[in-house]
């Protein structure tokens, strides 16, 4: 698993340590990958462009198997939902 945000590597390192995350956060300050996934939220954070929250599962060949975009940035994919999607994808 990887995460992607607009934050700098230093900021992401701080978040990983603080939240004890077991996966890397990649830095996309110019929103190149965020745009490639169509997730730009213009002015989403105090006037600055950020990513809309979203989760994708890619298969072994890099194809999108599953994706989830929530309606609210408070409401994220639940771990059980992700595990179920992974289980279905591997069948």
């Amino acid at each position, binding site marked *: *698993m990887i*995460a992607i945000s607009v934050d700098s590597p230093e900021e992401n390192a701080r978040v990983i340590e603080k939240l004890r995350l077991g996966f890397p956060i990649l830095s996309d300050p110019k929103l190149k990958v965020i745009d490639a996934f169509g997730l730009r939220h213009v002015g989403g954070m105090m006037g600055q462009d950020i990513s809309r929250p*979203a989760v994708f*599962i890619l298969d072994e060949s890099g194809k999108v198997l599953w994706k989830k975009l929530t309606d609210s940035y408070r409401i994220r994919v639940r771990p059980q939902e992700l595990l179920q999607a992974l289980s279905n994808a591997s069948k």
Partner: protein
Amino acid sequence: MNTLTAANRRHRLGCLGLALVLVGILSYFLFFYRFPSTRDLPWLNLLIIGLGVAFAWKGFRAGRPQAPAWRPGLRSLLFFVSLSLSGLFVYYIFYLSYQIPPPSAVTTSLKTPAGFVLRNHQNRPVALSDFRGRPLIISFYRGHW
């Protein structure tokens, strides 16, 4: 004397109401936000906040004619601050947090994302192709923690 004591009691009721509202709001962001069952619909926080507003309302309304002149002012303040903070919380939960763009055409039609290289938290380059041959979860965060 009795009137003053009763007024103090009502004043305390207003303070208790405001305190409950603050606890209800702050505990959401500091604690309950971590758990999906209390994050997605903050029922417990809304319950605490509702109780707080009820206490503040009771303190505001109870025995108004007998209270000294300055007391209703303070109780009014406690009630309206409680009500305003509660309103802001409800506004954030049920409206503001939903203000994100709808899924774009690029997202909905995306089949195979193009390769990319980004820097990880250790400032080392990581490529999408590094994960080829195994399933991969990619989670996009808003950032600005």
